[in-house]
């Protein structure tokens, strides 16, 4: 039985072979041969033609349904508690390879036993970037003493095993020129360390102290433990893939971010390529638009082929084109033409648009093959040539 497969292993793509194996399980050897032969014929029939303008087809396939997408920036994506950029704006964002995106988001998957919901609240709280503001219950400023008493949120502190002493350490790191003393288990007194202490310093402190970073992963603005299927995971607003993956209990194989640049930086261009495909699919699924993966893959491959992310814009892919006229026909034509003239560039007319400009056949599809036609017998041509030369 294995023999029958072996013959086609190189002839058929892996995905189709898998499917045959799945559907033809238990078939006899002879039957299997028949099946594979039939599949092979079908496969041959469905191959792309050389010269097919697959790039244009992909661009059409992605661009055409663009008009059907909503402009609604905010849409609920799985989690009804969070607003996420979706629809056309998100698609533009992905294809632009923008560095700052509308809603940065992560899906943090957890390893057992945490994915069954154990300690999920605690893990979530640990991940979240917290500033001192969240530990404060109330301020009390003593004008005479020129100090400030801060009442702390005990329940909040217990969640992350914090004590006033620990918090003071953090505060000292984040703020210069103040002294802190802990009183009891839930109160801190702050005082200016400078000799000529001033009340206005304390008032300044009151504002500044709120923003002191205490713990958690920087960049994670919000955490939401959610149950998806049988599994618990944490959805976050804000991303920091590097730090999150380092946390114990996080499933590093499935945890993702929607920030493509972060993926590229940490996991490389191949991962970023896949990330673009995933992100685009997310948008399209959400909008109920059917586009074959091949088109999305091609768009993603064009963006990542140079080894780093290039947006589909005048600063990205178009800038890298070898042809002067192709660049000039997109945007800012004068800039391209002048630069080309200064550097003495040559345009070898290999791509589509230059040949359109010159009224020549385009090197795609039926414009690709060259046929040499002899209009006249050889003799006549020879004679005419001789005449011309004479």
């Amino acid at each position, binding site marked *: 039985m294995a023999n029958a497969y072996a013959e086609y292993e190189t002839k058929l793509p892996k*995905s*189709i072979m898998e499917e045959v194996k799945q559907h033809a399980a238990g078939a006899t050897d002879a039957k299997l041969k028949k099946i594979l032969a*039939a*599949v092979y014929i079908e496969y041959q029939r*469905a*191959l*792309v*033609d050389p010269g*097919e*303008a*697959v*790039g244009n*087809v*992909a*661009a059409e396939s992605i*661009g*055409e349904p*663009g*008009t059907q*997408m909503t402009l609604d920036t905010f*849409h609920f994506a799985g989690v*009804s508690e969070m*607003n996420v950029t979706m629809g056309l704006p998100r698609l533009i964002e992905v294809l632009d390879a923008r560095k700052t995106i509308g809603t940065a988001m992560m899906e943090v998957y957890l390893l057992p036993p945490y994915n069954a919901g154990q300690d999920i609240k605690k893990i979530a709280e640990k991940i979240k970037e917290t500033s001192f503001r969240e530990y404060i219950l109330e301020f009390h400023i003593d004008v005479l003493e020129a100090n400030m008493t801060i009442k702390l949120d005990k329940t909040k502190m217990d969640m992350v095993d914090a004590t006033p002493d620990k918090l003071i350490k953090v505060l000292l790191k984040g703020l210069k020129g103040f002294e802190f003393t802990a009183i009891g288990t839930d109160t801190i007194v702050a005082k200016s360390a400078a000799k000529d202490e001033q009340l206005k310093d304390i008032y300044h402190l009151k504002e500044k102290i709120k923003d002191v970073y205490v713990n958690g992963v920087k960049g994670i603005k*919000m955490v939401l433990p959610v149950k998806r299927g049988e599994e618990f995971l944490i959805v976050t607003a804000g991303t920091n893939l590097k730090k999150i993956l380092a946390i114990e209990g996080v499933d590093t194989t499935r945890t993702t971010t929607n920030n493509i640049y972060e993926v590229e930086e940490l996991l490389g261009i191949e991962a970023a390529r896949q990330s673009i495909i995933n992100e685009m699919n997310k948008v399209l699924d959400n909008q109920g638009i*059917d*586009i*074959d*993966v*091949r*088109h999305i*893959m*091609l*768009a993603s491959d064009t963006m990542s*082929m140079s080894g780093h992310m290039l947006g*589909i814009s005048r600063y990205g892919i*178009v*800038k890298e*084109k070898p042809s002067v006229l192709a660049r000039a026909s997109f945007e*800012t034509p*004068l800039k391209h*033409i002048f630069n*080309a*003239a*200064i*550097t*003495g*560039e*040559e*345009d070898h*007319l*290999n791509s*589509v*648009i230059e040949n359109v*400009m*010159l*009224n*020549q056949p385009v*090197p795609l*599809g039926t414009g*690709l093959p060259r046929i040499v036609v002899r209009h006249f017998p050889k003799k006549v041509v020879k004679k005419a040539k001789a005449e011309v030369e004479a």
Partner: protein
Amino acid sequence: MEIPVYKQVDKIVFEIMSPKFIKEMSSAKIVTPELYDKEGYPVDGGLMDVRLGVIDPGLRCKTCGQKLKECPGHFGYIELARPVVHIRFVKLVLDLLRSTCRECGGLLIPKNRLAQYVTELDQIELTQGQSERRDRIAEIVAELKTINKCPHCAAKQKKIVLEKPTTFLEDDRRISPIEIRTRLERIGDDDLPVFGVNPRAMRPEWGILTVLPIPPVTMRPSITLETGERSEDDLTHKLGDIVRINQRLFENINAGAPEIIIEDLWDLLQYHVTTFFDNEVSQLPPARHRSGQPLKTITARIKSKEGRIRHNLAGKRTNFSARTVISPDPAIEINEVGVPKVMAMKLTVPERITSWNAEYLKSFVKRGTAQYPGANYVVRPDGKRKRITDETKEQLLEELQPGYVVERHLLDGDIALFNRQPSLHRMSMMCHKVRVLPGLTLRLNPAVCEPYNADFDGDEMNLHIPQTEEARAEAEILMQVQTQIVSPRYGLSVIGCNQDAISGNYILSKYLSFTRPEAIDLLMSVGIEDFKRVPNKKIVSGREVFSVLLPEDFGFNAEPKSNKPADIENAVVIKDGLLVKGVLDKSQLGAGAGLLLRTLHKQYGADDMGVILGRIYKMGINVLLKYGFTAGISDIDLSPEADDKIRTLLNEAEADVHRMIGQYEQKSLELLPGRTLDETLELRVLERLNKVRNETGRVVAENAVASTGTMMMVRSGARGNLINVAQMAACVGQQAFRGGRISNGYKGRTLSVFKKGDLGPEARGFIRNSFKSGLKPHEMFFMAMTGRDSLMDTALRTPKSGYLYRRLANAMQDLKVEYDGTVRDASGKIVQFNYGEDNLDVSRTEAGRINVKKIIENLG
């Protein structure tokens, strides 16, 4: 005999014109701003000099001797009295001045490190590309700026700043363009590559103009107004200014005028030359007409969508095309287009006379232009086109012989390309066969509305007639409608039944049965003439009638929509070309889904499928024609019990919402994680109200009479959905505005009829009434709000998605599959090793896959 020579442009080299080159290529030196003499004849040495080409009929060009339309025009030049800076090279000149020595012109880099820079730059260009090289050059220049002692001649360097747009200052002293030019001349060729200047393409001093090329008059033609007055082109105006000031400057210099006057004139010359190139330089006031509107000078002519590049070079126009309003005609085939007779008599097809068709083509010429089918032109072998008129007809008929070409009127069966804008995908331009019809509109089969995205509310479409054998062959083989049935976007058919065609077939397969004569009558109206497959019995069922349209050996099993017994009962089963069971609806016949159609396409090929689809379509329409089909208000009448049920549901929901508001006011509402109290309330209320809309929808679905026109349209998928019906029959529902309920427009309330702070459903855009019961004034207002919002959304979205599309197309248009199966771009770089990882063409797959399961099933 003349041998045709086929030439193709191999490459284009971009360079800067040197002053010497400009003089050499010129055919005239321009010395006077005058245009015409008293007789209106162009002045010699003026801007309209006949040596620069001709724009007046009758005149001959003095350079090439050709007439108007033959002479391409020739450049001239003017000698500038004093050099001026070319606005486009200001940046480059500044960089060069700053990074070279003011005394010796040497680069401010020690000789030993120069080689290092050059290799580094070459390396960057090789690995990262041109633009990165340019970035690095900018960095190098920034470094050099700070060096203040020449490493070659030890001369002290001064700080140079640019006073925009064109004045250079060295330690607050102005450097004249003459001085700049001499400095630039001193820079050696070897140093230029560092700045990205190729010495073979450009010498830096050419950035300071000493001579100015004058574009040919053919490029700036004047228009003669009705009054006989001449109106000159903007460029001519600008050039006139330049020449005038230039002459004045010459005169003043020769007369030894004071320096200050010369400086002023020089600056003015600089201004005119700058605005001649670019009239939108930010620091300069644009040069204007007397009427005050800015002149369109060279830059404006080239750039932007209406500029030379995108408008004229990348966008072409064609002859032999037509455009008019479209209208539907289900009686023509899907690959036909109905062309009005008047159009068919203007559009022509060239046909070459041979000894076999001479008589045939002569008959066209004989009928002439006024009688259909005639001919409009005869083309002689030397390429001369002769129009057929009553006077020339006789002579032409005698003259005609093999080798002549007759441009005859359009006939039935001719090849045409049909197109509707926006041409968003390749199915927006397909090849149809001409069918000349009476009337004045272009006709198309409504089944092809989907790929064109056309309707008949006034849409216009374009028709093109290919003029060569190659073009016709390509159109017919690659672009004909039936070859485009399967979309390359998702591998399913984009052409299918719609509207009446779906509901008609639905009724046919679900309810109808006929007497045999009736069945035959129906089949005849569809175009079937062979009735041996109609069962020979008294009563023929609708399914049996439909089966006649299918191929005799066709087999198909549809997947039931769900596991409900009703759905399983309605699933289509076709065995040996007979519709055994099931109901035909949109999922089988429609565009986008069309599983039955997709299978037919797969099994019998595009051509047969096209024919079958045409018949199924006509069948649907003819069924409705015979059966009758209406939708009325009574279709959505509900029983009193159902009405009661809906009322209770709505009351319950409203009570729930009020309870939530109560909790909200007492702050006892349970918060959703990460949300404030206000947001939580809004989300919860929205959720509850949407739920009740769906509930009422369900009540309507259960209680509406399934055999009414409206419900049949919904059930078959022909038009409308259950939500639409529910909105008509039960409750319109919550109006969503910017992702939430309608928020305050007045202080504390949405409309002045409500109390301040009212958060109840009614005050926030919940429409309790149905369209049938009628909307209250405030409900109508809320509805108008969301309506306007969605209009705005569409208006904003179209240009956004259009731009995205343009960028995508521009970035990816060169990618093609090579013979080795790789996908490469224009320069041969590999983008994918196998297209889509498996080399499959999506339009040849079933939804992107090879249907292995079906292949195995078919093998038995």
